[in-house]
């Protein structure tokens, strides 16, 4: 069979591939000739935003990425941190925003599948998964369909694969109407001395293709992920990929078995831009050339062209460089798991990326220029205007405090996400110490040791002030980990923004990154992996800037872990960090007064550190019985959530609406035995931390504030638990 004739390279075709004229000129210059169609496809995949990070690289370099516990920072499939005892945690977050908007179920499954692969590619068994989701307005006609599909997809893949999904976020805002966000994070456990990297080593070694067969799925997916949407988004549909968690589970077991056999020199999963991206990265990192013979690639469909094979994003595939003497052993392992295994090429010393198909050379490219030397931009940016200050004393109190508490507790962003997380298996593997619903998911590592995980960002803060908002995302994540008693260790991120070619958007990006970097430095919370998703815009309307922060913390003694649940009536409730005053960008302002203005609460990183360290010390010395950080909704929401999770009531002293709803940072609510309160307050004073008594836990199932406000827990629960099921009914 002869391959169909390849199209001629025209300026239109170049533009369709998302290459700007100057980029194309640079490419032609590198080759010294007109590229072939296959070469154009490869270049467009490698140089697009998604793979090359060309707009963001300059700024990502300024993030803190090293630390005592960092074994591997950004640049590999996932970051690696040392948790002692010869163990390492490997983790990363990744977006699948555009595909999930087009086909929510499959978009979400393949997003989860991709991030799990990133983690086990490095030799780790995945032990936890998280998902951070943003949808449009609840009443937007597409929202329910998207929520239902995405949640089913996240669960459909993770449950079948067998990883507990233990934390995440769900938010709604009209700015995500045309661009939802699906960020998935995976966390794995490995022996610190048995970690696998993508850098190829050695000339003339077999390059092996493993996993599922190649089809025409997702061709141009990576390019799509970097394109702005317009009303024609639906036309881009045929690129949808379908996830197969069963094959991925087999791939996991086969890879771990193969790694244990000592056969693997280098390994790279096939994610965005499949075979192209994985082969180029392996070669470029190892300063080697790669030659592939596409006749050997296992295909699911007939008549696939070189272009299609190189750009296919079929899922559940891996590329490896193997020790030749172990080839047979390796093949046997893969056959046992029912997976494809094929030697599709070899490493060379030419630094060229050579693709042969049906006896013809379809591509012959300089591998470094395609990979780590791809173009890089310093895009123009303008510093966002700081929002005008908002004087808290000018913000009116609610007419009816009880009604306000109910409204906030049952609002789109504050209500319980149980409807979501009950669709996720949070218990599999038998190590889950905290399921969703608390401040962080907690997973036992073995013995007394455990890790805590949380993902956080408050997009409305970032929109209002990207720098403070960036700091806040990191601070909140750090606080959530601290609140369960974990020592926060390291971070992955998923930076979701609009079109970076617009200086205002680039300005948001730059300032948010400065904030994130500063917070990570101050909190000794290095960033070891991450993902950038730009061009999240529809018809010129960008999403709220959403730099999701995924954090991992370490608990040395699981027995000391804290939870948000009050333990007994009569215990004292204390506020660590003192009363707040900032209502700008608060949930109160939005839900009760219909306003989204003012600056977000500023983040004092030194205070954040002192207060968090203090709370952690209280947890470690077993002086507190419940802990919850204060974030969205302020003190009121924190206390209500604690009451709801325990079924116990509270009697608080008289508090103003500002005290109840201010979202000032660096604060926690804790409970303790009544007789311990005094000692805690004075210990805090010695450390320069303000701790004020708030009231007591009661057997009477109601939230009482002062003498005038009393709301039955049952009503609060109905509001809290009822919103999501009603939306989805």
């Amino acid at each position, binding site marked *: 069979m002869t391959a169909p004739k390849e199209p001629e390279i025209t300026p239109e075709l170049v533009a369709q591939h998302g290459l700007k004229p100057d980029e194309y000129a640079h490419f032609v210059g590198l080759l010294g000739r007109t590229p072939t169609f296959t070469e154009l496809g490869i270049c467009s995949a490698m140089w697009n935003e998604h793979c090359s990070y060309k707009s963001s690289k300059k700024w990502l370099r300024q993030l803190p990425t090293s630390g005592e516990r960092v074994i591997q920072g950004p640049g590999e499939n996932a970051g690696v941190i040392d948790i002692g005892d010869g163990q390492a945690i490997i983790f990363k977050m990744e977006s699948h925003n555009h595909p999930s908007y087009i086909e929510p179920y499959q978009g979400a499954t393949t997003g989860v599948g991709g991030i799990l692969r990133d983690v086990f590619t490095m030799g780790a068994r995945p032990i936890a998964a998280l998902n951070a989701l943003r949808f449009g307005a609840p009443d937007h006609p597409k929202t329910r369909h998207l929520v239902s599909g995405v949640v089913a997809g996240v669960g459909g893949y993770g449950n079948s694969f067998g990883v507990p999904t233990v934390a995440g976020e769900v938010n709604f805002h009209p700015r995500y109407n045309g661009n939802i966000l699906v960020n998935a994070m995976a966390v794995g456990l490995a022996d610190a001395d048995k970690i696998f990297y993508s850098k190829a080593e050695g000339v003339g070694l077999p390059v092996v293709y493993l996993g599922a067969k190649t089809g025409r799925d997702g061709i141009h997916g990576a390019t799509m992920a970097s394109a702005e949407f317009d009303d024609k988004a639906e036309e881009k549909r045929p690129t*949808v990929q*379908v996830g*197969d968690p069963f094959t991925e589970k087999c791939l996991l077991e086969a890879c771990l078995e193969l790694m244990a056999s000592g056969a693997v020199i280098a390994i790279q999963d096939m994610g965005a831009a499949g075979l192209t991206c994985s082969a180029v990265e392996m070669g470029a990192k190892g300063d080697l050339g790669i030659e592939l013979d596409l006749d050997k690639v296992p295909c699911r469909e007939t008549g696939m062209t070189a272009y299609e094979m190189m750009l296919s994003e079929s899922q559940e595939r891996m590329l490896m460089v193997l020790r030749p003497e172990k080839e047979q052993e390796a093949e046997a392992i893969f056959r046992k798991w029912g997976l494809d295994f094929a030697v599709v090429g070899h490493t060379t010393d030419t630094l060229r990326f050579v693709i042969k198909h049906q006896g013809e050379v379809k591509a012959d490219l300089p591998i470094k220029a395609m990979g780590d030397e791809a173009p890089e931009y310093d895009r123009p940016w303008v510093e966002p205007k700081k929002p005008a200050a908002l004087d808290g004393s000018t913000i009116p109190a609610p007419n009816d405090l009880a009604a306000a508490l109910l409204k906030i507790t049952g609002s789109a962003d504050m209500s319980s996400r149980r409807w979501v997380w009950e669709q996720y298996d949070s218990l599999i593997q038998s190590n889950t110490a905290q399921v969703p619903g608390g401040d962080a998911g907690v997973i036992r590592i073995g013995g007394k040791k455990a890790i805590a995980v949380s993902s956080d960002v408050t997009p409305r803060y970032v929109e209002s002030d990207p720098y403070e908002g960036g700091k806040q995302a990191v601070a909140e994540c750090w606080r959530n980990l601290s609140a369960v008693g974990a020592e926060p260790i390291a971070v992955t991120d998923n930076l979701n923004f609009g079109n970076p070619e617009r200086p205002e958007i680039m300005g948001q990006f730059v300032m948010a990154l400065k904030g994130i970097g500063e917070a990570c430095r101050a909190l000794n919370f290095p960033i070891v992996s991450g993902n950038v998703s730009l061009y999240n815009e529809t018809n010129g309307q960008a999403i709220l800037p959403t730099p999701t922060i995924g954090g991992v913390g370490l608990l040395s003694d699981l027995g000391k872990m804290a939870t948000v649940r009050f333990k007994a009536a009569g215990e004292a409730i204390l506020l660590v960090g003192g009363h707040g005053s900032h209502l700008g960008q608060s949930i109160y302002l939005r839900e009760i007064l219909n306003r989204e203005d003012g600056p977000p609460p500023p983040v004092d990183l030194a205070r954040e550190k002192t207060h968090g360290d203090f709370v952690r010390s209280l947890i470690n010395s077993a002086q507190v019985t419940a802990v919850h950080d204060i974030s969205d909704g302020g003190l009121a929401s924190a206390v209500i959530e604690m009451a709801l999770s325990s079924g116990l009531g509270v009697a608080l002293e008289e508090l103003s609406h500002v005290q109840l709803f201010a979202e000032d940072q660096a604060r926690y609510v804790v409970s303790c035995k009544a007789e311990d309160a005094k000692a805690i307050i004075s210990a805090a004073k010695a450390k320069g931390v303000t701790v004020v008594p708030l009231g007591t836990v009661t057997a009477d199932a109601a939230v009482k504030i002062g003498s005038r406000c009393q709301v039955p827990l049952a009503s609060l629960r109905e509001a809290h638990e009822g919103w999501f099921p009603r939306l989805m009914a």
Partner: protein
Amino acid sequence: MKAKVKVTLKNGVLDPQGKAIEGALGSLGFGGVNGVRQGKYFEIDLAETDRAKAEAAVKAMCDKLIANTVIENYAIEIA
């Protein structure tokens, strides 16, 4: 009237279920199976008595709900 609807995956869309069934048939000793594709089948009982109207209604149901036209095709038969 009764409508019978077959919903099948579009060509080229991965069908993990079909693939697994194919493999299982092989291990059960059934030879000569070149491929299996799994789809869905619906029987819809309609009050409508006009054939053309029934067909139009079912087509609308398929587009709106029953088929995921991003990855699936459908075929309607009215009986």
